[in-house]
Structure formats: C-alpha cells, structure tokens
C-alpha cells in the first residue's frame, strides 16, 4: 500500500527533471545493462555490446578524447541501490549503469568500465587520475563544483528520513535528540549536520562507510532514523516491511516542486563529475545525455529501475 505511494512519488521526481510521460515499462529491451562481467570479487566490469546490436566494438588505437582503447573508466561507490549495485549473481546494474550504457556505448560508441571507490574520497580520486568520470548518484553542489565540473543534471533527488514503523518520529521536529545514521561524505550527512546545528547540537550522527551500514543499524535498533536520498531510501523501505518514510512537507514543497508525500529536507540534482580540464569530453557527454533523453531511452532506463 505504502509501496505504491513511494513509486508514484518517484515518478513525480522525473517530471521535475523535465520529462513527460515516463511510463516506460522496463521490458527486456534495456535489461542487459552491465551483464558483460564475470562477477566475483572483481571491482571493474566492462560493458560492451548494447541491446540492439547497434553498437560497434571499435577498440582501435585512435584515442578519442584521450581514452585508452575507447574505454571510459567510471568511479562509483558500489553498492548504492538502485543506482549501482550487484545482482545476486554478481552482475553490476542500476540506474547509473543504465545511463552509462546509453550515453557511452549507444550514443558515443565507446566502452565503459566501473571502478569501485569509497564515496568520501571519490573526488580526490578522480582528480588523481584513477578514473575519467564519477557516476555515483552524486549531487551537484557548490563545494564539489570547486573541485570538479559537472555534466547537466540527469536526476533529481530529495534528502528524506526513514524510520522503523514502530517509531514515534513523525515530523522533522521529532528528530531532536535522536541518533541518525548516514553515509560518510554524502549530502545526506551534510543535511543531517545542518539539522544538528538547527537543533543546537541535540542530535547524534552515526556516519557509516556505506549506506547499507546505516540501514543495518536502523534494523538493529542502533539508530532511530536514516537520512539519505529518496530513491535509495525508497528501494530499502519497499524491501523492508518494518521501515517507512517520515511524512510531511518540506524543502520540495517550499520550492514549489512537485512535492512527494514524504518529508523532504533538501532538493538536489545529480550530475556526472569530470576533471576541470576535461571540457571537450564533458560537452560531448552533455550532448549524448540530451540525445538519450530525446530518444526516450532515458524513460526506458528510468522505468526499469524506479517503476519496475
């Protein structure tokens, strides 16, 4: 029952991104996003061979945009369901993976490879040259924009609060004095720190390495709430019967956005991050991103991960 509400809400999020009629039903057409790999413990997974055979695997020596063998290396903090995670058989999948497939393989004729990197060090890692871009459900903000350049936004998200169903917390004010689990280095952590300041320090923040750690802590009763992106929280709340959103209006309603029914602390846009000297490649990716939207491919991928 509630599950349906969340899904509807996520649909509303897409409207904000500027899409009409995202009713794509995620039928097999785009289902093979990151199937190429061999699973196991490997942290990289190359994706070639799209869905329609329209991709060419030209691994010629011509180094487009200075890429080695035409492979775009992508830094990402895996797992962050439903943006990047592994299926039970170990295949990498998720919304970011689908977008990477559409943009790099289908539009640009390149290949891609995901590299796992902890989120709190992912920007220095990009600037140190460990990979070419970041696709890790990364929110565009001023602080980060000083260190990297972002693509056009490709997703809109909200910071939201989830709690156990037996919890007394039903509004933002109820968070005063409780302990909140977040992922280290995320905008969820930043939003929670803002909240702590607002409460005059009367809030305990537990920063976990990965969001799954915060979710575990919520289930184990170690934290009273988790503050994180709406889509990721929704994927978890849908999976767990004893977890639900805190409802209410918030930042989205204030900004006149198409507000979801749950409490929103902030409104954020995700972007692909590039090094600051990478303008030519960034521009090309922006064009490809626009093409993916126009062709309806974006809706298909969206439907696969948020309405399936």
């Amino acid at each position, binding site marked *: 029952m509630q599950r349906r509400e969340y899904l509807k809400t996520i649909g509303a999020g897409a409207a904000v991104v500027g899409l009409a009629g995202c009713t794509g039903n995620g039928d097999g057409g785009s289902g093979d996003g990151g199937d190429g790999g061999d699973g196991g413990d490997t942290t990289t997974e190359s994706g070639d061979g799209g869905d329609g055979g329209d991709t060419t695997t030209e691994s010629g020596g011509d180094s487009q945009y200075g890429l080695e063998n035409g492979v775009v290396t992508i830094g990402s903090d895996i797992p962050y369901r439903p943006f990047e995670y592994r299926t039970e058989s170990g295949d990498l999948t998720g919304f970011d993976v689908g977008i990477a497939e559409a943009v790099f393989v289908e539009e640009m004729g390149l290949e891609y490879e995901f590299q796992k990197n902890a989120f709190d060090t992912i920007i220095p890692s990009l600037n140190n040259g460990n990979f070419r871009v970041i696709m890790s459900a990364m929110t565009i903000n001023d*602080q980060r924009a000083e260190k990297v350049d972002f693509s056009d936004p490709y997703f809109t998200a909200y910071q939201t609060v989830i709690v156990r169903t037996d919890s007394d917390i039903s509004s933002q004010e109820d968070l005063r004095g409780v302990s909140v689990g977040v992922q280290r280095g995320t905008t969820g952590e930043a939003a929670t720190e803002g909240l702590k300041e607002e409460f005059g320090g009367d809030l305990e923040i537990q920063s976990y390495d990965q969001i799954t750690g915060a979710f575990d802590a919520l289930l*184990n009763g170690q934290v009273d709430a988790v503050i994180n992106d709406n889509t990721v929280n929704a994927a978890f709340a849908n999976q767990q019967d004893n977890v639900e959103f805190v409802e209410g209006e918030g930042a989205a309603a204030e900004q006149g956005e198409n507000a979801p029914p749950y409490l929103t602390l902030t409104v954020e846009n995700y972007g692909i991050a590039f090094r600051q000297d990478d303008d030519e490649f960034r521009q090309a990716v922006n064009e490809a991103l626009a093409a993916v939207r126009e062709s309806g491919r974006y809706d298909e991928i969206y439907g696969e991960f948020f309405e399936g």
Partner: protein
Amino acid sequence: MSDAYEGTTEDTTAGTRGLADDTVVRRIGELATGLFAMAVLGFLGWILVTQVDYGLLVSVFDRFVEAFGLVLFIVIVSSVLSVSLGTLMGLARISASPLTSRIAKGYVEFFRGTPLLFQLFVIFLGIPRAWPYGAFPVEDWRVPAAVLGLTLNHIAYVAEATRGGVNAVGDGQLEAARSLGMSRVQAMRKVVLPQAWRNALPAIGNDQIILVKDTSLLTVIAVPELLSVFRNINSNQFDPWTPLVWVCLFYLAMTVSLSLIVSLLERRADWEIDDDQGAWLGRLLGSFSSLGGRR
C-alpha cells in the same frame, strides 16, 4: 670503546680493506641515514609549509580531542582486559590438561586467524540481528562492540606471547623447583612465571601498540574515532593534509607513551626478577618520579 678498536684496525689493515674498513662502513652508514633523515624532514617541512591550512588546523582541534578521549577510553579498557585475560588464556594454552590446552589453541587459531574487521562486523552487525529475545537491549552498541572485538582479538595475541615467554624458560627451572618439593602450580608461580613475564613483556607491549592502531578500524562501525574525524573533514573541505597532522600526532601520543611504559616495565623486570609480583605497580609509579633524575 670503539676508539681503541679502530686504533688497532688501522694499524694492521690501513688502506688494504677498502669497503670492509670499520671506519668506512661507519661513515657510509652515517651518510645513508643522514641523507634519509634529511629527505624525510625536508618532505615534512615542505608539507607543513605548503599543504597545511593552519586556520583549519586550529578550528578542528576540539573535534580531534573529543575523538582522542573516546579512543583512549577504548584502548585502556581493551588493553587491561586483553592483557589480563590473555595471560590466563596463555596459561590455559600450556596447561597439562589436553582439554584445556586444545580449547585455548582453538580460540587462538580462530581469533588470530580471522581479520579483526571480520570480527567487528560479526559483533556489531551480527549479534544484534541474531538476538533471540526481541529487540536488542543495548541502545548504543558501537563502543561496547569495539571493546569486545579488540579484547577478544588481542587476547589471542597476548596468549601466544605468554606461551612463548613460558616456553623460553629452560626446562631445568621447573624440574629443579619440582625436585625441591614444590607442586607444579607452586613451581610455575614462584619460579617459571616471573621469568616468563620478563620474556613475554616485549611481545605483549608490541601487541598493545598494535591494539592502539587497530582502533582505526572502528571507523567502519561508525565509532567517531580519529580517522573517522579525518574522513569527515576531508570529505567536506577536500583538504587531506591538515587533519592528517592531528591524526598522526594523536596516534603517536598514544603509541610512544605506551612504548615508554613498556620499556619501564622491562627495566623493572630486569632488576628484580625473583621479587614478589604483586608489588610491581607500586614500584612502577616510583620509577616515574625518579625518571627525570636518571635521564
């Protein structure tokens, strides 16, 4: 001492030994270590001048002090527990009873044979989930889980150090004590263990220093320890070096003072091997006050 030795060497072999000449070897050693020290100091100086933001260094100090207090608490509790229980486990390990010694061996093999990180996840995530009586009763399980994990893990290492210490005491000691009519327990307590304690001290001290550094792993179970504060500052300010300075200084503050305590204990153990074991703490405190005079 070395002067006299060099004198005789020069008399007999001057100019004929080349690289093997004592003085040459000594000078080469000094040159190499001197260059190394200069390179390290130069690097550190360069970092401190070019990379460290001193405004930020001051403003984050309080957060590190807070984390340091917590780490110190965890270290002290885990250290006391792991040394005392680890000594007992070591004695169980060398017990004449095969049941006792095999169980102790199994314990050591498990806790030494699996990573501390694994053990922390088992304790922090696993135990609350498997709790059979409804909701897990401990509201904030992070620090208790940390102490439990560090203690269980280091009991295994202290036990091995204790076993090594006892084994290093010659068989003749026990045999002689037994032949004087002491029971096995008496002989162990009065003759073997005082010597074993001295043998095991360096290894136990080494392990406790590792325990201090192992607290850095607690960042994965959301304990707000030193590296956790560093990671938070770095992910917000994108400045690694400034918070790293504090991380380095606070860890060294703990490990250097710990190794000082260990070397004090070693010195006491050297002087008064066969003394009553119960009074060593009082003498340790005495040695702190006389430390200034001796240096």
